[in-house]
């Protein structure tokens, strides 16, 4: 009965491993793209094989015993129950094996903490539920938000190849350069994780943490936030594009141009309709996750904007809430996250959408004045 069942279980396991030949069934860590990630990969393989060997030795003994030392085959119980020599042996031998494993692990850990002297530094700020990358040079600084459409998540449209692992603006870095990341968070703890580089570092509100990587090859690499940060936790991926130096420089120039044109836009005069149109895009990217596209919020946790006191009352209070948030709740202070134009347009949108018909609008200059 027993051996038959063991064979059956074995058969199931074999069946599983044969389907595992399919490419979708990835069995191991992602292909490393940095020295650290390669070391981690090798370290994992080393420990895995040590464990497999110990497992096979110990469980061969166990299974031999299960088959031979059973009453049904007439085996009589021995009476030994102690052996100091054996006890010492199997305390000391594992200890030595552990020391052998600790040695390469220590070497890698020392390298992982070697953050000084980078070729470039990017400041990463985590928000519920997006990332901000600040190159700290020429004003290049932008948000990186999930770009998978909601319809795909809700199963109303077929899913793309990179479903949930795609963003509007990826982090772009040059290949072969030591990139240092300074991480902080605005609201709750998040974690910036990029398996191909062997990086995972929590972003903690109120503290700056650092980590580094040096990508070996160009390409697009994907990771996800790795610390529970609320309901959008599964929807804030991290994408890094590694370019060669020339392409990177070209990309950086484009970013500088964008910064300049954004500055010009902020000074322009806008009509209420233009603001409302822009505001809808800002709302979708920043507000809809909580307050919902229909402005109804989530009863019990997230207040509705449709017909709310703030969105239909005096606009000063509305501006204040958007810019400074509401402490102790999920409502963030957006003053630091959004530009004058974005804040003005999203408030205009909120005051003139769904059942709200305030009829007034907020100009970017009003926000600019408040920032002083």
């Amino acid at each position, binding site marked *: 009965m027993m051996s038959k069942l063991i064979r059956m279980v074995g058969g199931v396991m074999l069946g*599983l491993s044969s389907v595992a030949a399919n490419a979708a069934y990835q069995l191991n860590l992602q292909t490393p793209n940095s020295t650290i990630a390669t070391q981690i990969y090798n370290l994992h393989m080393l*420990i895995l094989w040590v464990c497999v060997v110990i*497992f096979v030795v110990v*469980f061969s003994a166990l299974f031999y015993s*299960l088959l031979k030392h059973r009453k049904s085959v007439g085996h009589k119980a021995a009476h030994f129950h102690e052996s100091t020599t054996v006890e010492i042996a199997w305390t000391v031998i594992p200890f030595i094996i552990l020391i052998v494993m600790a040695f390469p692990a220590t070497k890698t850990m020392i390298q992982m903490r070697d953050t000084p002297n980078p070729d470039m530094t990017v400041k990463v700020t985590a928000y519920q539920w997006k990332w901000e990358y600040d190159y700290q040079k020429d004003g290049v600084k932008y948000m990186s938000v999930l770009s998978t459409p909601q319809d795909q998540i809700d199963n109303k449209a077929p899913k793309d190849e990179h479903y949930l692992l795609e963003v509007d603006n990826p982090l772009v870095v040059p290949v072969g350069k030591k990139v240092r990341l300074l991480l902080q968070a605005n609201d709750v703890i998040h974690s910036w994780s990029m398996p191909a580089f062997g990086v995972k570092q929590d972003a903690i509100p*109120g503290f700056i943490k650092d980590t580094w990587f040096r990508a070996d090859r160009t390409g697009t690499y994907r990771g996800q936030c790795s610390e529970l940060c609320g309901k959008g936790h599964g929807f804030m991926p991290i994408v890094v594009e590694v370019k060669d130096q020339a392409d990177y420089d070209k990309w950086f120039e484009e970013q500088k141009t964008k910064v300049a044109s954004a500055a010009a836009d902020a000074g322009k005069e806008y009509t209420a309709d233009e603001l409302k149109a822009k505001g809808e895009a800002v709302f979708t990217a920043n507000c809809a996750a909580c307050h919902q596209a229909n402005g109804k919020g989530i009863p019990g946790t997230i207040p509705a904007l449709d017909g709310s006191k703030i969105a239909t009352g005096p606009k000063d209070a509305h501006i204040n809430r958007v810019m400074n948030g509401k402490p102790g709740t999920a409502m963030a202070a957006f003053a630091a996250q959004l530009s004058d134009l974005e804040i003005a347009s999203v408030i205009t949108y909120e005051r003139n959408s769904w059942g709200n018909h305030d009829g007034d609008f907020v100009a970017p200059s009003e926000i600019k004045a408040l920032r002083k």
Partner: protein
Amino acid sequence: MQATATHGHDDHGHDHHPSGFMRWVTTTNHKDIGTMYLWFSFAMFLVGGSLAMLIRAELFQPGLQFVRPEVFNQLTTMHGLIMVFGAIMPAFVGFANWQVPMMIGAPDMALPRLNNWSFWLLPVAGCLLIASFFVPGGASAGGWTMYPPLFIQGGISNDMTIFAVHILGISSIMGSINIIVTIMNMRAPGMTWMKMPLFVWTWFITAYLLVAVMPVLAGTVTMLLTDRHFGTHFFSAAGGGDPVMFQHLFWFFGHPEVYIMILPAFGIISQIIPTFARKPLFGYASMVYATASIAILSFTVWAHHMFAVGMPLVGQLYFVYATMLIAVPTGVKVFNWVSTMWRGSMTFETPMLFAVGFIWLFTIGGFTGLVLAIAPVDIQLQDTYYVVAHFHYVLVSGALFAIFGGVYYWLPKWSGKMYSESLGKTHFWLSFVGFNIAFFPQHFLGLAGMPRRIPDYALQFADFNRISSIGAFLFGASQLFFLYVVINAIRSGEKAPAMPWEGADTLEWTHLPSPAPYHSFDTAPVIK
């Protein structure tokens, strides 16, 4: 008197307590209280299990099908809290209540009224947790680890969770003090420390762990509460606090907690294996020392749960080395169990199947623990499904399998009825196969980089998630079957002899009839 001390005391005993519902409310009998603990924990196990079924249903395929993301987070949070505090811990206290007095030859627990209160606090906490699903905003959704600042956000359910944790903590502390006092003072004459059954030893050590760390947890969640409502900033950098400090405090409780949930399991396994191998436990003394070493080391390794927060290098190195060290006493235990079986005369009744399954699968969980101890590898695996697989291998096929094994082992003594061996074995194989299908593929998901606690995932993770969900449904259904097996045994099982197992040698088997009388060992047996 001598004659009635151990036999035929039944009818006499029943005269002295109320019957019906009030019997259970007012009881101070360790067997009644043990029974209530076990049924309560099984009820919570089914509640926590239903939440797990919803989680696996949502994760059956990519996209959102059944629950919204905020509800998904409530499910994972409450699944963790209910299983840890409501199912596993009370189940072991139930075992302690039934078995510790009988195994040391004591008439009851040392503090029977305290015992009653420790139990009756539990349903209150359980109701608070379950009721929190129905308050505005739904249940707690910040993870069972309750990390701030996320846990500072959120509604009244978080306060209910904090109060529930307080109540559960008080219950655990009182239960533990009772166990410590009972073992220290009420052993039968001749029952020296090193003659105590290993189950009693493991609970003695576990009780100390509980008394040491539950107050830490209570203090920590109280700080959360004052941060939420009374303007303190223990965990907020804006007021001079530190969110990471919460994690240090939580895991100072949390890591010993892991051993609180596994040491009594070690004890149960150490009773079952010698019985069915018909051979004394190999290395009894080293088992006791290994248990104590694991308990002491468990206080010194907490920050290995936090390698990704960015600790200083020296701190990280220390926690890696200390964590690896735990592998040594844990290994000793596994080697001792295998040596106990070696050259025995084994039979494979259901308790033994669960014990062998435990050794095999718990060892896999131990090995993945070793992999996770290595900080650089942990950086890749932290907060992925690899960790989920790891702790389910030690908590489900570890703690839970030991509980199942223990229930089958002692059910004849508790109820006086034998379970059906073929049904019991079916339950084992269904659980074993279902469990492995559910959790083994999660190792691969974690290695490939799938984060835990997400309601939806990238397409590359779809296949293993589907397999995992199918296994989970099988495992879940098997536990309803377990309920049937137990009820069937109690209702219509064959009458159990005083000593149904050939190789058992502890007092409850050698000195008491089945079922054990309501009052046992009124006169202490003498151990030679």
